């Protein structure tokens, strides 16, 4: 394990400590260390590290730099709303707050390089300095000269400094139009299933044995591995569900080695977690409370359950009419909604193929008149066109069940689109005893 991390410029104990903190990432750490070289030597001006999220990029680099006590400045580009904060952070980490105070009000890159050069002539680098930029994909949206200048920072300030860019996204989209100084590309591969198991097993609870926890992790990965490989998410899920897993053990019903019974207990629970906690429909606090409240299977309301508001009677029919108007082509209205529609030529009518099914393409906009026409034919009692009907349409727009497509200025012929899903509208129509599928063109 430690043999991969050997380097003449650094002490053995420190490297040992680094290796202990980086399970399954020795190869990448070794690669980085060999690129960094000894502290007084130059390293390549810019290195681009990419890999999936939670694949250990920031972790490895931070551990390496902290344990080996190398001068570094870590900046997350999400926090840098303006470039000034980036420049200040770098100068602060390398030269102290006096240097950072030398920057003018809204500093340009020219000011930054000038101040850096001044400071460098006073205290030049005996060891390589590292600037680490996390979430580097946001640099593409900053000024056009920032990214090329950062890639060449070593040349511009004439100092022993290396810039490390960490990102999830491949380098090809970063390249500016006229080219730039290409960095060294370093890939952090994703963890394999075995490695994930190894790392997750490190979180084990001290009062249970290691094999017990490993079997738990096995079951967890069996449910979640095909959906998600993000280490952070898996650790979160493992921590949340472990108490439920240990429940039968605590109650004395099963022994540690009864894996089948334990699996039967936890598996439906994990499936439920996938629909709720994994999707952030419920917060982890709610999840834990629900676990303690034992068997209340149906009472867990996720965030999207809150969209199923109780609507008044006519609003429901307005919504149904809007759905029909969005998903049926206008020429088919006659067939569905008139009592005596006469003969419709079949050939013309039934010309649809799967691609143009409206349910795949999305809802179409419709004018207000069409909505009202369908509404009057769909609702079973006689309704007078009063202001209350129109105000219900506006409240549907506010609830974001309808979207207004036309411009705000157009008052006489507004256009709308229906923004609800098939399941939602089926649930609504069931409550008013309306068979909506019969009226949908795509399901003829």
């Amino acid at each position: 394990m430690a043999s991969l991390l050997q380097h003449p410029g650094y002490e053995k104990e420190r490297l040992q400590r680094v290796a202990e903190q980086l399970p399954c990432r020795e190869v990448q750490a070794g690669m980085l260390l060999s690129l960094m070289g000894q502290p007084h030597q130059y390293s390549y001006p810019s290195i681009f590290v990419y890999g999936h999220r939670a694949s250990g990029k920031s972790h490895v680099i931070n551990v390496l730099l902290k344990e080996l006590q190398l001068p570094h400045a870590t900046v997350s580009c999400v926090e840098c709303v303006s470039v000034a904060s980036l420049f200040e952070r770098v100068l602060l980490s390398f030269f102290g707050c006096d240097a950072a105070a030398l920057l003018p009000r809204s500093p340009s890159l020219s000011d930054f390089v000038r101040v850096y050069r001044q400071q460098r002539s006073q205290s030049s680098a005996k060891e390589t300095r590292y600037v680490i930029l996390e979430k580097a994909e946001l640099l593409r949206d900053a000024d056009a000269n920032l990214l090329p200048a950062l890639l060449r920072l070593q040349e511009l300030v004439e100092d022993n400094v290396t810039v490390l860019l960490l990102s999830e996204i491949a380098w090809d989209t970063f390249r500016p139009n006229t080219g730039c100084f290409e960095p060294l590309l370093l890939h952090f591969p994703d963890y394999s299933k075995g490695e994930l198991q190894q790392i997750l097993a490190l979180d084990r609870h001290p009062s249970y044995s290691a094999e017990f926890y490993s079997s738990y992790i096995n079951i967890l990965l069996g449910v979640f591995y095909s959906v998600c490989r993000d280490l952070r998410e898996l650790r979160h899920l493992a921590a949340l569900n472990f108490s439920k897993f240990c429940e039968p053990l605590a109650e004395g019903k099963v022994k540690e080695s009864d894996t089948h019974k334990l699996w039967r207990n936890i598996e439906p629970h994990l499936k439920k977690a996938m629909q709720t906690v994994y999707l952030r429909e419920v917060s982890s606090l709610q999840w834990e409370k629900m676990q303690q409240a034992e068997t209340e299977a149906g009472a867990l309301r996720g965030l999207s359950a809150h969209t199923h508001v109780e609507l008044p009677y006519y609003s429901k029919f307005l919504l149904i009419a809007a759905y029909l108007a969005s998903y049926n082509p206008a020429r088919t209205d006659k067939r569905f909604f008139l009592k005596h529609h006469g003969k419709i030529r079949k050939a013309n009518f039934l010309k649809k193929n799967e691609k143009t099914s409206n349910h795949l393409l999305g809802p179409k906009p419709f004018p207000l008149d069409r909505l009202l026409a369908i509404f009057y034919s769909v609702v079973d009692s006689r309704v007078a066109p009063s202001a209350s009907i129109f105000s219900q349409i506006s409240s549907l727009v506010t609830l974001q069940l309808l979207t207004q497509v036309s411009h705000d200025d157009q008052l006489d012929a507004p256009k709308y689109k229906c923004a609800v899903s098939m399941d939602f509208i089926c649930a609504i129509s069931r409550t008013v005893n309306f068979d909506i599928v019969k009226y949908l063109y795509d399901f003829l």
Partner: protein
Amino acid sequence: MSKRKVKDSHLPVGECITQLQTILRERLCHQQLPTQLEGVEAQHKHLLELLKRTAVQGESNSVLIVGPRGSGKTMLLKCVLRDLLEEQEAQKNVLQVHLNGLLQTDDRIALKEITRQLHLENVVGDKVFGSFAENLAFLLEALKKGDRSNSRPVLFVLDEFDLFAHHKNQTLLYNLFDVSQSAQAPIAVVGLSCRLDVLELLEKRVKSRFSHRQIHLLSNLSFTQYLERIRTQLSLPDDFPDARFAQEWNNSVESLCEDKLVEEVLQRHFNSSKDFRSMHRLLMLCLSHVSVVNPAIKPADLVEASRMCLSDAKANTLHGLSILELCLIIAMKHLNDVYEGEPFNLQMVHNEFKKFLQRKSNSMYNFDRPVIMKAFEHLQQLELIRAVDGSAAKTQREYQLMRLMLDHSQIVEALQKYPQCPTDVKQWAMSAFG
């Protein structure tokens, strides 16, 4: 005398390796100037004469050095400046101002930088100038020495010259070239640019004041010259403290360059790009493996370094996707094949995926809609799919049109390398085409 020399020239291996790394890293990472530039002697001579005329005889000149990225423009200029300053008179008189298009994004900032580099901040003080031209004239006037009637020659170096051409009215360029044409003060303007069409960017009045002198650095290296260059880059100089180690190292470099496998790898790199920078990147990766345990560069190291340089980033990303996300990508590929590259949305992709599930009739991948939506959004965050421009923000998320940013061959290659890919997924991917 000779006995003492033999005793001094033997260092322990660790020390030798450290020295070796320091020297080679200076060369590869820090762009240390070589004593002799190869292949550009004519350009070197031309530029040196030009600058000498300005420095010594007070003649104004302007020249552009043009060449693709990494072809050695800055290196050439630095070598010329080093050779120029070896002459006593030039060293005494000439002043240098280095401007960079990336840093000085505005003419105002550029003027401040010029003032600063000429050390004339105190002279300028709080003066307010009417125009750029006045300011520049004042600066050049201030450089006149006591008894001489001419001011000192100033050498203006403009890096990333094409970015200066994007400034408003191209004021800086106009004024610099104007001064170089009129007899005000002896200046030399040297611009470096990676764009071959940089002259087209200049306005007519600026272009007419430019001397139209261009030095091109378009390398026409042959493969043997490329190999030779690699060998010189890796060789240790003669003044290395341990002569025996240096000799061994240089021999190993020679045998490396003659190896068949290495030649193939280098041929591949040569075919894609001949410039210095990609060569340095490759050599840097090889150098990082050199240590006490591994005191020479072996052919396997070079092959490994080449593989790292040429690996496909998107294929690496595909390797780390979950199975659900991979299935979504395959569904998108099928949609692209059937509908010839027209954009798709999540509904269509889900529909295609459901067709696969119906055929297979196993419920392993029967996930809920929101879980599939989350996987789809993850793919969007990785920029493997991108929204089509013009999709209004008013469309619901599942109906927003997207395009797949991957190629057919990348997906097929990724599937081969995917760890523990289920066979039915592979079969689904291979069906219906090819």
